[in-house]
């Protein structure tokens, strides 16, 4: 008998939408061992569950009886509306999976044995275990586009229904699952009510504005909301989202182009309004997080806004520091981290003081997700900075 290598066919010859999360992420085990990730406290500040699978349930939470009936009739008589009724989902976004080249973006259709908890809770657990994540901030998917809904009288009640459903069915089911609750931003009063409803929930780490295109974040009617969040010590996130219908993206013919520009300009717009209107001065203790746009745009914004501000100070009289100083005091999530030029990335980290302000995010199960090893193998960071970014900064920010 020889002691040759053990040869066996791989149990999974092809990864499809039906492959289980642990099998899709099996190769992440190498990083886990290489970097000792099990001993690192990792907070994932941006990940997603698929609320469309529970759409009829969510619709049952819509309070307005007429709207609820409209949705229920839609689902009854238009089979394709079963997972979409009332939503403004942009069909172009179905191109995200690059023609089914990236199966986990298309769907997580893996079998889950029936149990006490919702399927999405088990999916989140599987992802956390595979990536050694200790705490995961979970967001919806298509509902993130709610800021693009053409009709606020649908968008607001729909988001309220989703939030109630999420807080009852997903959030309390695992102590590792947390969230920043999405605000029905078109309606400032409803935003305040949302904070009053969920602000004391220990699993609610803060609130967020989603993919908003049509509201200036500096408008006076939002000041009570910001004051409320500041008083409660709850952070406000801005989760960017893509749209093919922005004036700029409407000329684009490839999803790649829309994705590259749309997230970034969404956050750039709000950040510009936020800073130039002096909101960091009006709410000095309100913590702001910019979510899901990578980091490459940040040094650009620092230089661009500083440059303009110095020439036109009279248009931003509330500012007491340079725009770049305010940016440095804000938080950013890391994903999708642009790593094609390490020197540029290192300069970006330095410019934004990343070691004290950057928060690791996976964005799982989206197609451009980042593993924790993305941070661990950055050559220019020392270990303390890596641990801060993976979990230490989030621990401080959210009081975890």
């Amino acid at each position: 008998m020889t002691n040759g290598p053990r040869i066996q066919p791989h149990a999974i010859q092809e990864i499809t939408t039906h492959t289980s999360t642990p099998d899709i992420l099996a190769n992440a085990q190498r990083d886990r061992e290489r970097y000792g990730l099990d001993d690192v406290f990792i907070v994932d500040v941006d990940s997603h569950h698929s609320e469309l699978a529970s759409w009829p349930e969510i619709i049952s939470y819509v309070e307005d009886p007429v709207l609820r009936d409209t949705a229920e009739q839609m689902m009854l008589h238009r089979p394709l509306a079963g997972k979409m009724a009332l939503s403004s989902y942009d069909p172009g976004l179905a191109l995200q999976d690059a023609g089914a080249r990236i199966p986990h973006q298309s769907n997580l259709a893996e079998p889950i044995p029936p149990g006490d908890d919702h399927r999405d809770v088990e999916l989140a657990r599987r992802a956390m275990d595979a990536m050694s994540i200790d705490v995961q901030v979970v967001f919806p998917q298509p509902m993130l586009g709610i800021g693009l809904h053409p009709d606020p009288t649908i968008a607001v009640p729909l988001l309220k229904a989703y939030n109630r459903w999420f807080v009852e069915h997903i959030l309390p089911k695992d102590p590792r699952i947390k969230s920043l609750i999405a605000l029905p931003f078109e309606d400032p009063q409803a935003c305040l009510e949302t904070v009053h409803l969920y602000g004391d929930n220990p699993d609610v780490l803060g609130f967020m504005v989603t993919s908003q295109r049509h509201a200036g974040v500096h408008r006076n009617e939002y000041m009570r909301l910001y004051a409320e969040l500041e008083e409660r010590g709850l952070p406000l996130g801005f989760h960017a989202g893509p749209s093919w219908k922005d004036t700029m993206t409407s000329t684009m013919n490839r999803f790649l182009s829309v994705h590259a520009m749309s997230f970034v300009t969404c956050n750039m717009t709000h950040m510009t309004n936020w800073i130039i209107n002096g909101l960091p001065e009006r709410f000095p203790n309100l913590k702001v997080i910019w979510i899901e746009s990578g980091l490459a745009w940040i040094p650009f914004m620092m230089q661009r806004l500083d440059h303009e501000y110095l020439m036109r100070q009279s248009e931003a009289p509330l500012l007491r520091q340079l725009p770049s100083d305010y940016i440095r005091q804000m938080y950013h999530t890391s994903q999708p981290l642009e790593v094609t030029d390490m020197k540029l990335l290192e300069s970006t980290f330095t410019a934004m003081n990343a070691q004290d302000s950057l928060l690791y995010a996976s964005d799982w199960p989206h197609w451009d997700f980042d593993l924790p090893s993305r941070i661990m193998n950055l050559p220019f960071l020392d270990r303390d900075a890596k641990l801060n970014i993976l979990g230490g900064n989030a621990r401080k920010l959210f009081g975890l």
Partner: protein
Amino acid sequence: MAISARPVAPDIVVARSTDVLEGRRHLVAVDDVHLGLFRFRGKLYAYENACPHMGGPVCQDRMVDGVLERIEDDRTSRGMTFDEDDPHVVCPWHGFEFRITTGEHAGFSKIRLRSFPVTEDGGEIRVRL
């Protein structure tokens, strides 16, 4: 003339010829090294199932022909088509596409899969790790 003292690793029988049909692949584990074997127009290729991007299971996703954009003499675009001479394998984690015949990223050849010499004889496929 210097003579290399480096020992040559033996070829390891990793599969039968019939395991890797024309235009298909076969994933095999050799201890803890996972390999993707591919056959295209009779020739065999062997790559490690670890993506140079972030370590993803690069040999386990869709095999799909490379995409070309058709440009006319007047430089107008006439849309996309598949190149049947250039099969790709896609990494399921983030979509990096690699040429099965060379192991290089289809758009940036400096990024490549780790490949292994592969031979076939007497119905057996051997790989040198």
